[in-house]
């Protein structure tokens, strides 16, 4: 099964993370990975290594906030929640992505 490598996803990582948080509410890093691969039908697999620097950068940028919670299994995990500024960012990136996808599709269809 072809797996999307991280470098292709570079620009879309924030978009995916923000979209995930929007639909799932508060979630930890591992959950975000799982959600994306499950929902994409295993088409998209985040490179786990790049997820955490991205999460921390997004938190520094004020798009998401975090807090430590205890999971059902009794483990300590850091849960991320989207902030109002994250909503704006998501709308922005959504728009950018659609434009990009439309553009790429047009180029591919051209004959």
């Amino acid at each position, binding site marked *: 099964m072809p797996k999307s490598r991280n470098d292709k996803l570079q620009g879309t990582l924030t978009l995916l993370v923000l979209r995930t948080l929007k639909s799932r509410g508060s979630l930890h890093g591992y959950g975000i990975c799982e959600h994306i691969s499950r929902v994409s039908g295993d088409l998209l697999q985040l490179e786990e290594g790049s997820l955490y620097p991205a999460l921390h950068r997004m938190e520094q940028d004020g798009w998401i906030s975090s807090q430590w919670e205890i999971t059902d*299994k009794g483990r300590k995990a850091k849960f991320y929640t989207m902030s109002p500024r994250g909503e704006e960012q998501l709308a922005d990136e959504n728009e950018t992505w659609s434009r990009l996808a439309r553009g790429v599709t047009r180029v591919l269809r051209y004959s």
Partner: protein
Amino acid sequence: MAWLDRWRNVFRAESLNREIEDELQYHLAETVDRLVAEGMSEQNAWRAARLRLGNYSAQKERTRDMNIATWLDATRADFLYGIRQLRLDPGFATIAILSLALGIGGNTAIFQLIDAVCLKNLPVQNPEELVAVDFEKGSSRPGVWYGRSAAVSSQQWELIRDQQRVFRSVAAWSPDRFNLADGGEPRMAEGLYVSGDFFEVLGVNALLGRTLTVKDDSAACNPGMVLSYAFWQREFAGDPGVLQRSIRLGGRAIPILGVMPAAFFGVQVGNQFDLALPLCADRLLANDQQGRARIPFSWWLSILGRLKPGETVASASAQLRTLSPGIMQSSLPPAYQPDTAKRFLQNKMFAVEGGSGFSRLRDDYERPLWLLMAITGLVLLIACANLANLLLARASVREREIAIRLAIGASRSRLVRQLLVESLLVALAGSALGMLLAVSLSGALVAFLSTADNSLFVDLTLDWRILGFTTVLGVLTCLLVGLLPAWRATHRAPVAAMQAAGRSVTAGNRQSSLRRMLVITQVSLSFVLLFGSLLFVRSLQNLLHIDSGFQADGLLTVNLDFSSVSYPKERRLALWREMQDRLSVIPGVVSLAQASITPLSGSSWDGVVGGDATPASGSTKSAFFTEVGPGYFQTMGTPLLAGREFNDRDTSTSPKVAIVDEIFARNIFGGANPIGRSFHMTADRGKPEPVYEVVGLVRRSKYGELRENFKPLAYFAIVQTNNLDPSATFVLRTAGPPVQVMDGVKATIAALGPSIGINFHPLSVQLQNSLLRDRLMATLSAGFGFLAVLLATLGLYGVISYMVAQRRNEIGIRIALGADRSNVIRLILREALFLLGCGLAMGNILALFAGKAAATLLFGLEPHDVVSLMAASLLLALIALLASYLPAKKAADGNPMAALRNE
């Protein structure tokens, strides 16, 4: 705020790391759980999970960097590294920090004084608008002077007030001292006579009650007084009910109207006023109930005005000049002789900036303080050179490490920064310690300059100016000290450095030439300081061994004040005699005499005299005077060269007689034997000039101060003058220390009248106090000179030791080949002598300039005093040779085989 978070995270890096670790661990644990659920063994699951996460520690690093201001974090790491480096070498750190602290502390302390005494404005409203009125140089106003800042008479003050148009308002003031005690030893308070609008001109309000107003200073004069905050605290413990109370001055109770705020110390920098009275109170407190306002040649007031908007000091000066002729004409003292009057009418007034107040302290100490600042500046420079030298030596030890790091691609700027941080740390620690040092040092300086009779008040609160000064100094120091070694260390070809480290005979020549330059600089600068301190010490010695014309040891001046007793004038002569009789039988008193003005007391009296038949009004010669009683010269220890002392047959009705000193005899009588000759004294216009017959000739004596040239002196018999002040001064020669007779004198005087005021001045103390400034310069410059030489010695020792270490194998080979050990020593000393020679040559040139700067403060000494130059050279050479002999001897005594095996 992201940047704020990042900034903050720098200082919680540890817990941040732990959080990231926890987060990643959670991720791993969940992944492992899933993989195990899918059937993988736990061990394999962990490996797989780690693989998927990628390089774990790189992961951590990257995540961490997202949270931290990277450059700041690197700086923090540099600081930690720097601190570790310094702790590895505590000897270096201690010497470095201490020498910088002394340099910076000295500079800051002196700057603090300069700031307080010379730069700061008065703590009043808009001080830059304040202007003082003064007379142009060469102005002629013979008369009675009250204090150095005094400028005008009451009459002139009123004329200026009424005629000027440049000031919004103008005030007059005069300092005075009041005795608060009713008899016995005095309790002095610093007073200010002020015109009614004084406080309004300054724009200061009372903290409690009210300030004085124009109404208080009226012709009817029903005076009240205003207290300073410090006096209120000291005398009344800050009692708010003080406004209902009064203070007795000269037998008169004066009500307290108000208390001034703590920051207001008056208009004289260096003095703090205790109580302020309206000008008219001078009349009420005067013995004759007249005061100084009625005397046209009594110069006692200073004038302070606040400029109108748009006016400047220059425009005020211009107007005062224009007003001058009219004001002089209207205030001409009628007693002046015609030519004195002519000179008086040409006097011109002008305006000077008054915002920084008036200060005798400033007049006396501005130049010495700047000079001291230069001295401490040099000390700091030497300390910097020393430090740069030490850092260079350390950098050369770390040369290999730096070369390797450069070779594997470390950025040069990063390395420079790391090296700079080390010097910054030293500079910071030095500045902080120096700041602490400065506070106590400046306090000690003020205490040093305070005497019992003149306690200084200097506002030494730390403000932004001082802090800024120290900061700038610290940063400059850091750059001076750190930039050179850092630049040098990172600009050597890595290959050369790696090859050279600890091996080559000639390597590091460039670097060691830099270090030699630094040592030469140190030697030359410390030579300048040593020379300077020798100048001041020798100057002080000259002053201490000066021939004053009397023997100060064992002399006690006793000032008696019976103004509050009100003895009738006719009885005073009898009272003096009785005092004299009673005092002379006190055990320990060898002899005593009365005198109106004692030497070095600061009081003076001069006038024009004409020899023999020449009337004083036609003479150009002047002399200084003192009135003394019988036995004065014997008591003072001043030799009588010819004729006689005054005795009991000189009375108020006998012919007027005088005793003159050598200088008087030479100036007035051309050096011929003056006994039997006579001279004329000036008199007020319309009165006959008194003629005195000279009955004695005495050795010359100092009059006003020790530093001045001998002046022509004439002594009058005190019983023959009209001086019947309600005060008297006796000089007592005591067998032991003067302190021992004080109790006896007090008891004797109290028996005559308990409310007679009494004040003691041992003459030797007065003499010492008159040399305070010289003592200060000698002490401080000697201290700093010593410090400078010490630092230079350390520097020289360091460089020579380093050279010896570098050439150890060469020396080893030489010895192994049979070189004489003394040859080795000579080889090394030659280097030291070269450095010393260069340093001394440069130092001698600099010293000539330094001497010029100090010239006005020296006594009996040329600014390029050869003895001091020679002594400084010799002393420095001796110490320097010793500092280099030790490493040289060590090198020569070393086992050559050990040195060679080391290679």
